[in-house]
């Protein structure tokens, strides 16, 4: 009997590998045709600028472990328990999988920036998301919609985070540091451009993050303006005119940008609500999966034998996600051996 893991992103892969190494057999279910989840949308990682593809290659190699059975393009559609508590999961291809424990590693999806209508995503050509910028980095090409190298670029923090208007009260944690990393990457590609970050607070919580912020200011000449974007408009040249308050000066500020990047936050994964209801879990106030205790039960849910890891329970950066996956593996091992 095995451990079933839903989601083969970084959390699912890491947990699968650790469980397999400790002797468990793992059924790893992934809805896409490829493992990696949101990692596939990243070019370089913070704070060390490691290639996302390298990390993914490592994860992929790890899950080649003989004890891990990968089910790609598969989704769980039904859940039941046998008398002895054994978990049964039916997949959309009709396969029936049984296990002693279930780990939810369904992760997150990025905020749909269309919902901040006043920022003009999908309406103005030169408004892109941080995910699209990562893809542009992969292709080594940054141009405006009119085919020019942007002279002034604004990165807008907290799009889809800390915002009552779109029912997202929480901080997505990784957008600040992503903005700093992307600003530096932009600088390397566009030495002459003016690059500005518009932030509410700089939440540089991880090791090396604050140092990277400092370096962005001094070495890379990135400007930081404390103020939240209120609205953007488009001028005749398809540039963006933005309105923010420069809160540290106490005056409204307007400027024209050639390219505006929205640092999209994290939302519960697509299908999160269905998964919660199918597995009879609880929804946390932020919409993610509720863990049983914020200190001692961070990988446990309110259902015996069902565990959670990574961004299924709350926004996390990659470092914390991988750590959390190892923590989940330990928690599950303890459960199986008790």
């Amino acid at each position, binding site marked *: 009997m095995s451990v079933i893991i839903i989601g083969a992103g970084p959390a699912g892969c890491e947990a699968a590998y650790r469980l397999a190494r400790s002797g468990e057999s793992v059924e790893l279910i992934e809805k896409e045709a490829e493992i990696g989840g949101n990692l596939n949308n990243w070019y370089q990682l913070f704070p060390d600028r490691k290639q996302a593809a390298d990390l993914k290659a490592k994860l992929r190699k790890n899950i080649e472990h003989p004890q891990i059975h990968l089910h790609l393009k598969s989704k769980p559609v039904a859940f039941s328990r046998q008398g002895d508590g054994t978990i049964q999961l039916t997949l959309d291809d009709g396969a029936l999988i049984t296990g002693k424990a279930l780990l939810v590693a369904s992760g997150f999806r990025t905020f749909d920036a269309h919902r901040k209508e006043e920022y003009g995503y999908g309406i103005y050509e030169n408004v892109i998301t941080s995910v699209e910028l990562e893809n542009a980095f992969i292709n080594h090409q940054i141009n405006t919609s009119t085919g020019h190298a942007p002279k002034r670029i604004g990165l807008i923090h907290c799009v889809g985070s800390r915002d009552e208007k779109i029912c997202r009260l929480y901080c997505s944690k990784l957008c600040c540091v992503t903005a700093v990393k992307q600003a530096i990457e932009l600088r390397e590609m566009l030495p002459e451009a003016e690059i500005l970050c518009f932030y509410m607070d700089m939440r540089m919580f991880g090791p090396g993050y604050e140092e990277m912020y400092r370096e962005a*200011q001094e070495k890379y*000449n990135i*400007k*930081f303006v404390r103020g939240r974007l209120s609205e953007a408009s488009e001028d005749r040249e398809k540039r963006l005119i933005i309105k923010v308050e420069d809160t540290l*000066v106490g*005056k409204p*500020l307007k400027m024209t940008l050639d390219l505006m990047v929205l640092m999209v936050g994290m939302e519960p994964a697509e299908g999160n609500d269905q998964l919660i209801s199918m597995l009879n879990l609880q929804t946390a106030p932020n919409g993610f999966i509720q863990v049983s205790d914020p200190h001692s039960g961070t990988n446990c849910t309110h259902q015996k034998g069902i565990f959670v890891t990574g961004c299924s329970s709350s926004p996390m950066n990659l470092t914390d996600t991988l750590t959390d996956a190892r923590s989940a593996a330990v928690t599950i091992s303890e459960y199986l051996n008790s």
Partner: protein
Amino acid sequence: MNFWGFSISEARVIDYDKNDKTLAQIMATEVPSSKLCIGCGGCTATCSAGNLTEFNIRKLQMLAKRGENKELQTQLHKCMLCGKCLLVCPRGVDTRRMIWSMLRFINS
């Protein structure tokens, strides 16, 4: 005599596109550490001049970075160059040199 009893208000908004940012560029070149400011206000809290007058060094250098140089003309000379701001800055901004740089610009 204004027939209307009122006149059209001037915009208060910082027009970043139009503002002259020569001083901002000079400051960035002459005092690279000035780019490290995070607006914490430690300098202003301890400032000898700022405790007695409207002088706010944190705000003035931020205005200068946006090309809003007007206030500098009336405020900057109030600095006594005591250097206390330099001692408290958590980011190591060379505030004294920054003030010199701004003073030289507005006096030229």
